[in-house]
C-alpha cells in the first residue's frame, strides 16, 4: 500500500464514520426488534450468539491486543456460570448482583493463574492455562457439595426486581450487556491500556523502555478477559438452565480462541462476527458430529496462513471496494 493510499484512507475513514454510525444504529435497532420477529428458537440462537460475543470481546483484548494465548477461558466461562447459579439459587443474591460478583471473583482467579506466567514467554501462559482449565473442570466435578458434580445443576428462571426473565427478558439483558461490553472494549482499545497492550505484543522490551510494565498489563488484560467470560457464563447458565462440568472443557477453550481468530484478531467487529460464525456453523452442520470441529480447525489454520485479518477483515475489504 502506498503513501497516497494511506492519506486517502485517512480521509475516507473520516467520511465513512458517518456511514458506519448509521449502519451501527440500524444494527442496534434490528437487534432490539428481534424478539418481535424471531420465533423461540431463533431468539435462543441470537441470545447464544450474544453470550459468545461477550466471551470473544474479552478474549480479543487478551489475544488480539496483548498477543497472549489462553487455553482456559472455558473454565472462566464455567466458573462464572456456576458462581452465578450458586449465588442466585443457594445464597439468594439477586441475579444481576450474582453475575457481577461471579465476574469479579473469576477476574481474581484469572489474575492468580496469570501472574506466575506473565514474566515469561507466552508459551508458558498457554501451558499454565491449559493445566488450569483441566484442573478447574476436575474441581467443579469433584466439589459435589457445591456444584452437584457430574449430576449437573438445573436452574429455575432468573428474576430482576421481582419480574421473572423469560426468553425475551434474557435476550434483552444479553443485548444490554453485550452493548456495554462493546463500549468498554472500544474505550480500552482507544485508551492507554489498549495501546500499551499493542506495544507489549510487538516487543516487551520496547514497552519497558516506554515505562510500560509488560507483566502487569498482561495480567490486567487477562483479568478483564476472564471477567467478560464469567459474565457471559452467568448469562449462559440461565439461557440453557442446566449446566454440567462437561460443558466447560479445554475443547471449548480452543473453540473460543477460534472464534476470535476466525472473526478477526484485534477487532471488535471480528469478535461479533466470530461469535456468530461459531453459533451458526454447528446449526448448519447439524447431524455430522465432527464436521463443525473440522470446519473450525481448518479455518483456524487457513486464517493464520492466508488471511490473518479474519472474516471481519474480509468484510471490511469488500466494504471498502463498494
Amino acid at each position, binding site marked *: *500500500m*502506498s*503513501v497516497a493510499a*494511506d*492519506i486517502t484512507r*485517512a480521509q475516507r475513514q473520516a467520511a465513512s464514520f458517518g456511514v458506519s454510525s448509521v449502519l451501527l444504529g440500524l444494527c442496534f435497532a434490528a437487534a432490539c426488534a428481534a424478539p418481535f420477529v424471531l420465533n423461540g428458537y431463533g431468539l435462543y440462537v441470537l441470545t447464544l450468539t450474544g453470550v459468545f460475543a461477550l466471551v470473544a470481546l474479552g478474549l480479543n483484548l487478551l489475544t488480539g491486543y496483548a498477543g497472549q494465548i489462553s487455553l482456559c477461558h472455558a473454565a472462566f466461562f464455567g466458573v462464572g456460570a456456576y458462581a452465578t447459579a450458586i449465588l442466585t439459587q443457594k445464597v439468594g443474591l439477586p441475579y444481576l448482583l450474582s453475575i457481577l460478583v461471579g465476574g469479579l471473583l473469576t477476574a481474581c482467579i484469572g489474575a492468580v493463574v496469570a501472574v506466575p506466567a506473565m514474566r515469561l514467554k507466552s508459551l508458558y501462559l498457554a501451558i499454565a492455562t491449559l493445566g488450569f482449565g483441566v484442573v478447574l473442570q476436575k474441581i467443579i466435578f469433584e466439589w459435589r457439595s457445591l456444584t452437584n458434580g457430574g449430576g449437573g445443576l438445573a436452574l429455575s428462571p432468573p428474576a430482576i426486581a421481582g419480574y421473572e426473565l423469560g426468553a425475551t427478558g434474557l435476550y434483552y439483558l444479553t443485548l444490554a450487556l453485550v452493548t456495554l461490553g462493546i*463500549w*468498554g472494549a472500544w*474505550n*480500552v482499545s482507544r*485508551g*492507554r*491500556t489498549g*495501546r*500499551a497492550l*499493542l*506495544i507489549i505484543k*510487538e*516487543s516487551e*522490551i*520496547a*514497552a*519497558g*523502555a*516506554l*515505562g*510500560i*510494565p*509488560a507483566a502487569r498489563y498482561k495480567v*490486567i488484560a487477562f483479568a478483564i478477559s476472564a471477567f467478560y467470560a464469567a459474565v457471559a457464563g452467568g448469562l449462559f447458565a440461565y439461557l440453557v438452565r442446566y449446566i454440567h462440568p462437561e460443558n466447560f472443557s479445554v475443547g471449548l477453550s480452543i473453540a473460543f480462541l477460534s472464534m476470535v481468530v476466525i472473526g478477526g484478531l484485534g477487532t471488535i467487529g471480528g469478535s461479533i462476527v466470530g461469535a456468530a460464525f461459531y453459533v451458526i456453523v454447528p446449526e448448519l452442520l447439524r447431524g455430522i458430529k465432527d464436521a463443525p470441529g473440522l470446519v473450525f480447525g481448518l479455518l483456524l489454520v487457513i486464517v493464520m496462513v492466508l488471511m490473518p485479518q479474519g472474516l471481519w477483515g474480509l468484510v471490511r475489504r469488500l466494504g471498502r471496494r463498494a
Partner: protein
Amino acid sequence: MARLSVENVSVDFGGIHALRDVSFELESGAIVGLIGPNGAGKSTLLNCVSGITRPTRGQVRLDDAVLSALPPATVAGCGIGRVFQHPELVVDLPVRENLLIACHRSLGYGLVSELLKLPNVWAAERAAARRVDHVLERLGLSDSAELAIRNLPYGHRKLVDLGRALLMEIRFLLLDEPIAGLNDAEVAKLRDLLLRLRQELGLGILVVEHNMPFVSGLCDRLVVLDLGRLIANGPPVDVLRDPKVMASYLGEDA
C-alpha cells in the same frame, strides 16, 4: 542538574565477562559517546542503565537513587529514555498512534475511568495529542503523522523511535547506533537535532556509535570500552590519539 553514575559495574553471563568494573558519569547537558570494537560490551552497558540487564556487581545511580535494582519500566519512568538499534514500532498503526503509546505514563488515568471513558480521560487524551503534535513538529514528521509505520522509510522510523523517547519527559537519553542505515543528509539532521535537544531541554545524552567523525563532531566526551573494560574517558581529541584506543581498534601490533 542531574547525574547518571555507572559505578564499578561488572556483568557476567555464565562464563563470559561482558563488563568488567566500568565506572563513568553522565551529567545533564553533556553528550557522551560510548565507543569500542564489536563485543566490547557497549550494548550490555546500555542495558544495565535501562534496567534490562542487572549488573552482577556494582550499580547504576541517578543522583542518589539506585537504578540497577529496578525493573526497566520503572527506570524509564525515572526519566531515562532509550532508543534501540532497531526501532520496534507497531507497524500497523500510524505514526501518531505509535507516539501516543509513549504518553502512557503521563496520561495516568485508571482502568475504570478508561473503561467508562470518564471526562478526565477525554481531557488527558487531548493534552497528549497536543504534545504528540509538538514532537511531530520538532522532528519534522508532521506530514507523516497519519502514515502507517510499514510505509515509512527507515530513517523516519528511527525518528519516530526518538520521538517516543522525547514524549516521556526524559532527562537522559540513551541511543544505540542511531545513525546506522541513515544517509548523510539524515545523519546531519540527527546531529543538529541532538545538539538542539541538549540545548533546549538540557538532556544528558549517551550515544553508542561506530562512526568516528559523527561521535567526535557531536560529543563532549568519549568513553571507550574494550572487552568489557573502560580504557579511556575524555575529550574526543585526546581519546582518539590515545595509543590504547588505537591498539584496541587496530590490533596490538599497531
